[in-house]
């Protein structure tokens, strides 16, 4: 369950305290070097260039992921990227040139190009192929780590050189730079060790110091290891002060953390063909969690026509212009719903919500500067309007998706529209109602210049806090992309970066989440089973009727005298053979597969009906009393009818699932559920796959 830990890393980091904790531990634990680490400056430049490119990946205009559900619990992924080397600036390209590598015939040189980052835990070999199917050479992990370490050493020295204390002789920075170099070498050695070995996620670094009871000593002589370590730690504190750490510590610590937990996948690409298509198989993804056993039992034991719900989460580099997610399952399975949602505008919404709260909290000082408040309010209004416009487009595409489903969910299910006046919109927003309807009306009123003096309305003030809460609760920053694959056993979502990026400076990866409901659609197993159960019921009815010579036995308490057949063997044979033959006609899948999960309940229905007829056959072979025989036939028929009713319930449940307009998932944005007035409880998916931090 490696992915499990990865998913929680953010939470674990928060509890870990100091982000440079691991580095400090190693500074305490490593032997003090007596000579500097030697890294060629070329390595440092290459490492920094790789690090820069691998965070942004802005030379990848398109990214595709092809998912295949292997069985329940494992998903295989094939990742394809379009690489455009022309998007890498020529200066950076000079750094990336593979030394001594010229194409035969004196052609263009080759570059080391990062194409992905993935977790250090996934050590399955990755073979990158280009469009002709040839394997592309890769940089080994060891070399990638070495250049990354060189990059960090270079970055550290840049930071020291530019520090304001570097010319102040008594300061730790000056000592690190000029007089006490062993401490700097120690920091460099610690960084190198950390990058080469990697660091565990969310826990303390295990070091030899945990096993030794070191004698407490005083300050230490100048030049001994204790003072060297103390200076190294003091230097770190000065370079990365904890207060105002946003400036330096957090970016540096975050870089170091990514470098110690992820590998860069670096391919060697020739400059002769700047546009390439690369594809590789990512390490197999295990499912991350299972729903509670009781819930699974209920799904398997009740006639709810279960769907198999798979959720998938990944990260897309923000600079990627197009992202394709395709899913393929066995032909017997239908993809009933496929929906992708990404948090592309989430940062924008968070900034907007913080703006709202700040303005609300400063009502008093801002009140004295009316125009300043008006500017803020107009800025907020313009952004709210834009959000409303965007989400309305998403909703329209979702409605279109519902309408083009094989079994369409028509407009009839959509709630009726309300038309709001500007006062109503402001009143609704003030109460924190950020539903799409209100935002769309707000957008229209804003565009029609209906909201020109907002500072004087009731919106300015505490109402802003409600709007901020409403925006966060409605998850307005999440967009929706729908399936456009005409096949039933496949799905495809095409996500495009919005033409106007709302948080233009951000390089934060976009989190994307896909919801897939897999189901058994017509011609479904349940239909065959219903026919089989009905057939068996008819058979039992027929035999009973023939034996008693009429239909009286069904409802009358009178028992026919010759109910027990003269030759029971023939009846037994019919009762055993017919269900056996019918059962053999049903293709029952293995229980490990997804289809097996979907068919679990229906299979038990089929088995139950066969058990009934078999039991009846055994009874016929053994029982000699007319009364008992009649009762047994009655019981068997009743049980078969109950099973038949269960089958019909399945049909009803299937109809319900088909007409459901919004997936019952906690990851589907709230605004979409609200827009379709979905009040039903959300349910956990059957499988959840987390590929974050890899792409």
């Amino acid at each position: 369950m490696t992915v499990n830990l990865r998913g929680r890393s953010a939470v674990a980091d928060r509890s870990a305290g100091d982000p440079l904790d691991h580095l400090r531990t190693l500074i305490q634990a490593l032997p003090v070097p007596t000579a500097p680490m030697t890294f060629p400056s070329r390595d440092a430049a290459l490492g920094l260039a790789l690090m820069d490119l691998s965070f942004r990946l802005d030379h990848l205009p398109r990214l595709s992921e092809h998912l295949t559900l292997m069985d329940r619990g494992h998903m295989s992924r094939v990742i394809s990227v379009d690489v455009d080397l022309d998007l890498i600036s020529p200066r950076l390209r000079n750094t990336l040139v593979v030394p001594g590598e010229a194409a035969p015939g004196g052609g263009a040189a080759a570059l080391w190009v990062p194409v992905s980052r993935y977790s250090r835990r996934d050590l399955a070999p990755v073979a990158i192929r280009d469009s002709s199917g040839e394997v592309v050479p890769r940089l080994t992990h060891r070399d990638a780590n070495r250049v990354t370490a060189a990059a960090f050493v270079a970055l550290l020295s840049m930071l020291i050189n530019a520090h304001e204390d570097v010319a102040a002789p008594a300061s730790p920075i000056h000592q690190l730079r000029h007089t006490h170099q062993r401490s700097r070498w120690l920091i460099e050695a610690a960084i190198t060790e950390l990058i080469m070995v990697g660091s565990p996620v969310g826990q303390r670094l295990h070091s030899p110091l945990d096993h030794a009871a070191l004698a407490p000593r005083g300050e230490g002589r100048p030049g001994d290891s204790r003072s060297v370590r103390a200076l190294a730690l003091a230097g770190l504190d000065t370079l990365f002060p904890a207060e105002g750490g946003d400036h330096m510590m957090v970016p540096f610590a975050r870089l170091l953390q990514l470098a110690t937990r992820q590998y860069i996948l670096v391919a060697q690409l020739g400059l002769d063909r700047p546009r390439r298509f690369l594809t590789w198989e990512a390490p197999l993804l295990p499912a991350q969690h299972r729903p509670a056993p009781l819930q699974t039992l209920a799904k398997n034991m009740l006639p709810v026509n279960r769907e198999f719900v798979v959720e998938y989460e990944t990260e897309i580099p923000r600079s990627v212009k197009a992202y394709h997610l395709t899913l393929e399952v066995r032909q017997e399975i239908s993809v009933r719903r496929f929906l992708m949602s990404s948090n592309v505008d989430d940062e924008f919404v968070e900034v907007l919500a913080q703006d709202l709260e700040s303005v609300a909290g400063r009502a008093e000082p801002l009140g004295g500067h009316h125009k300043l408040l008006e500017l803020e309010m107009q800025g907020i209004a313009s952004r709210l309007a834009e959000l409303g416009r965007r989400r309305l487009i998403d909703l329209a595409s979702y409605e279109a998706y519902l309408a083009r489903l094989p079994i369409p969910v028509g407009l009839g299910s959509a709630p009726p529209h309300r038309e709001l006046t500007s006062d109503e919109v402001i009143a609704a927003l003030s109460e924190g109602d950020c539903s799409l309807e209100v935002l769309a009306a707000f957008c229209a009123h804003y565009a029609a210049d209906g909201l020109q003096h907002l500072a004087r309305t009731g919106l300015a003030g505490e109402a802003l806090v409600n709007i901020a809460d409403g925006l966060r609760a409605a998850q307005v920053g999440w967009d929706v992309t729908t399936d456009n694959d005409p096949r039933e056993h496949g799905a495809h979502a095409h996500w495009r970066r919005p033409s106007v990026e709302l948080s233009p400076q951000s390089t934060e990866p976009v989190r994307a989440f896909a919801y897939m409901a897999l189901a058994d659609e017509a011609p479904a197993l349940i239909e065959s089973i219903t026919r089989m159960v009905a057939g068996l019921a008819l058979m039992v009815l027929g035999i009973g009727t023939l034996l008693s010579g009429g239909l009286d036995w069904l409802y009358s308490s009178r028992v026919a005298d010759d109910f027990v057949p003269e030759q029971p063997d023939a009846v037994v044979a019919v009762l055993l053979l017919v269900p056996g033959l019918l059962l053999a006609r049903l293709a029952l899948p293995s229980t490990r597969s997804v289809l097996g999960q979907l068919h679990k309940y229906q299979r038990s229905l089929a088995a139950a009906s066969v058990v009934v007829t078999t039991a009846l056959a055994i009874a016929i072979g053994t029982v000699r009393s007319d009364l008992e025989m009649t009762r047994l036939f009655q019981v068997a028929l009743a049980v078969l009818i109950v099973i038949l009713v269960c089958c019909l319930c399945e049909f009803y449940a299937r109809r319900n699932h088909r007409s459901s307009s919004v997936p019952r998932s906690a990851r589907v944005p709230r605004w979409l559920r609200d827009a379709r007035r979905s009040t039903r409880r959300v349910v956990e998916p059957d499988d959840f796959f987390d590929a974050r931090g890899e792409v």
Partner: protein
Amino acid sequence: MTLPASSTKSSELARIAAEAAGTSSASVRFAVIHGPANGNDGPLPMALEDPDPDKEDPDAFPTDFLHFSAAGLSVSTSTWPSAMSAFSGRVQIGLPEHTGRRDTFAYSGHAVPNPGFIHQSTRKVEVLITLGNTHWSPTYREALMQALIIEKLTGLAAERGAPVLHLHTPVAPVPQPHGSDRGDGSNEPLRDAVGPCLRFAIGMDPRMSGTRLDFETELAALAEEYGFGLKLDDQRFNRVRGEWFTIRGFDRERYRQARGRLFPEVPVLTPRRAMIASVVGPSRTGTTAAAVGALRARGIGVLAASISSMRKTTFINLVLPVDGAATSPFPQWSGGWLDALPRLEQCAGHRPAAADESDEGLIADWKVALSPAMRCTYPQSSKQTGATTTGRVPYPIWLWWQLPYRTVDTPALLAEVQAALQPHTQRCEVAYAQSRLCRGDVVRGRAKLIVMLSQEHRDHNAVQRLLTDATDAAQERLRERLPALGGIDAGKVRLRLSPRERWLTYAGISA
């Protein structure tokens, strides 16, 4: 300490470091040229002639360039990446070199860039301060008042750890919009080329909106206290640079009173001579406030200023008035900041109490280049003062361009633009120009030119049409010329000339 989810700053740090390491540059080489804007021997050379043209220098083209001209004095700054790392301190500067042109000197040096100066991910808050509504010819008192305001404004930013992205004065004032002037701005009155205005931008973390609001509130309070006009960039979605939201109008009476109260003894005369001081060092927040504060405490005002960061190195270019009573020539000089202060005090001619030295630690090891004292001139007319009678008014024209690196350098481009505008204008000067090397190896720049049209017109609409025709024609001419000049693929040339700032594409640079 928590790790925020944001990795934007980390990737920016990686980028800065990669760019610094990629060009084998441990430092930044810079060249500053000071001189009169329009002497008898032509305009200020914006770049030095290469002393050794045979040398194949891969970095012959400067990565960043800044030109600024005000009061008849000009300064040009260029930077290159440099492999040199062995020098003491964080910045060094050479002796002034005479360029052969009168009063024109070049200073070159090296500086260590500060990779920790991260501001790409910040939200830019741009401010336009109005310090008067007549044409621009500041007195000693106004220069001091301006220094005080620069100090206060940049101090407000420094208190919050917000870097000053750029600061310019004088700049083109923005006419007060009328209710009916909406939409594309085609109806808006033409702007003056130069007015007693100050424009500056700071970078704020978008997630710290409280800090931004506090800054803006204090700015508004400051505007109320001193009476200056305050405009903020329009923060509405889809608004571009050059669109302003008026927070406070200019209060002439209050400004006059504040000026008289604060500097009662300073003469109300327009300086005849001025000098340029360029203060150079690694970028850090609070440096502008420290530099201008130290000068102001010594009774030195600021006539004009152009402050900008290039390659993580800050260049504070100030035009300082020279005391009218002082007769000494004040020759060119370069050296450390602390050594420069007594010299500057001498120029100012008056000595108030010793300044508080505490703030100056921030820039104590910075270097200063001083030009010789030069005669300064002021524009004689503006739309407000001169248009109605003569029609001979300087108008601003904005220029935005994007060209591949190492094709046409910025001084050559500006010369081309001036040549292209020649048929329509009597005079055409570059008031400011700035270009930067951006990601993808393109150089992007913005410039403001001041033109006097060759045809005189009093009618607003006629002038507007003339300006539009002139810029359109010049733009066409440039599009044809540039590919031939630099051997560039015509598809990669992007250039826009416009009499309105907001019609330029957003360039993403500060200038």
